[in-house]
């Protein structure tokens, strides 16, 4: 019995900004099903009162002076864009 449905896959693809080809969606559904089944083992673990760890260095905010450093020119960065016009990155219609 599958826990991840086709609708789940479409919802996750949507959240992930992926437009999946139909033939790929079903394979991914089966894969995600197996992976979720595997990671469910963590549900058995008692973590009451345990603090989560998001990072391991213990480093806290490190401040620097707000100085402008120009490592790269805007022309260099703009040249990386697949399409640009009039010094701006070009995209298709938004709305």
């Amino acid at each position, binding site marked *: 019995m599958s826990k991840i449905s086709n609708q789940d*896959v479409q919802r*996750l*693809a949507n*959240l*992930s*900004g*992926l*437009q*999946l*080809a139909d033939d*790929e969606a079903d*394979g*991914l559904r089966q*894969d*995600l099903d*197996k*992976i*979720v089944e*595997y*990671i*469910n*083992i*963590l*549900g058995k*673990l008692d*973590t009451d009162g*345990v*603090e*989560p*760890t*998001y*990072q*391991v*260095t213990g*480093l806290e905010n*490190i401040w*620097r002076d707000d100085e402008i450093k120009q*490592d*790269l020119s805007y022309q*260099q*960065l703009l040249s*990386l*864009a*697949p*399409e640009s016009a009039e010094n701006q*990155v070009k*995209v*298709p*219609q*938004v709305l």
Partner: protein
Amino acid sequence: MSQISDFLGKSATENVKNALERARSVEDYHALLSLTKQRALERAALVDSGQITGRLAGVPFVVKDNFLAFGAPSTASSKMLEGFDAPLQATAVEKLEAEGAICIGKANLDAFAHGGSTENSAFGATKNAHDQTRVAGGSSGGSAVVTALDVVPFALGTDTGGSIRQPASFNGVVGIKPTYGAVSRYGVVAMASSTDTIGCFATTADDANLVMEIMAGRDTRDMTTLPDFWLNSPELNKKKIGLIKDFMTDDVDSEVRKQTLKYADKLRSLGYQIEEIDLPMSKYSLAMYYIIVPAEISSNLARYDGVRYGRRAEGVKTLAELYGRSRDEGFVTENKRRIMIGSFVLSSGFFDAYYMQAQKARTLLINEFKQAFEKYDALIGPVAPTPAFKLGENTADPVKMYLADIMTVPASLAGLPALSLPAGVSSDGLPIGVQLIGSYQSDRALLELASKVEAL
């Protein structure tokens, strides 16, 4: 296999030409995606004329192709970044170049470093240096193979959950995943920011130590870097090493266990006591890893949208379609799996049960390690459950592929330094590595210990 010292004091141009020639002669392993011939020869001329000097003057090396480096495109083995001409270089590469090292090419990897075999490369799998029917391991498979095939004396890799250690084991070379934060990640394609590390492959522990010492240290362009601790590594003075029992079960290949015990015997002969130790949280590590890491991947890979750089789908009418189609075309299936798992564990209704639970479990794992290092200088165990598996053997089942990481992910989640060291070969002649895990910032001392074992 050659060492860094074999290249010092020689003509840099000759060193580079020989390495390029050697790279061409082993092309059928598909370990390299590109050669940086022109730039390498230009740099070599500068070394030969004395304009560049340093501890690695004229020594050729290879970078995993998720490092931004000049001379050839930086692709992360993905269609997304195919042909991407980096406008800057990774700090790690800059530091090596400043010491005279010369990058001669870029190594294959699983696309965006997602994988454990290099089979997820968008440009084809790399073959194992010792058996062309087997995987190179991954994700830094290409870097391990060029080191093992003697193309270069060292190569750079990244290790998020075992991506240096496992291919080092599969190809019979030294690999180091340093303490989290040891080396700047500026200019390296991000995967999972809480466990991504930069390390290297080499043929000896001393060479790895030198390369890491050069790369390590604070970088104002990566605020997660630690102040340079390399030369102030804690000494291993407890003279006790813990053998991780949970890594020595029947699920692990008997030859792998045998080689691990053989290496432990060598440590004994150096005056270390070996005691078995339980690490009960390790059995939950892989589940934690495949929650936390996909979550971070889904966030880090959101930047690939077909707008500012990278692949852009053609013939699309709206912005939403541009994102969706560009990402569909630019990512391999494993990238999509991980991004979607990340979206799943972070989505409302599942966040507490998966993501938060995994981060709490991570605290418990770290506590177990802390306790262990109160008593032991280091922990020993295998790197991977088996020697290199066959090409295609695990590609149909993602969970089976993930299980190859089961003994490397604990150190990653805890941010600890860990080495993969050649221990011996299987009856089929396949290399088997052993893993040494150390306490925070004990990287240099671990490598010095490995060097003493090499000398036995």
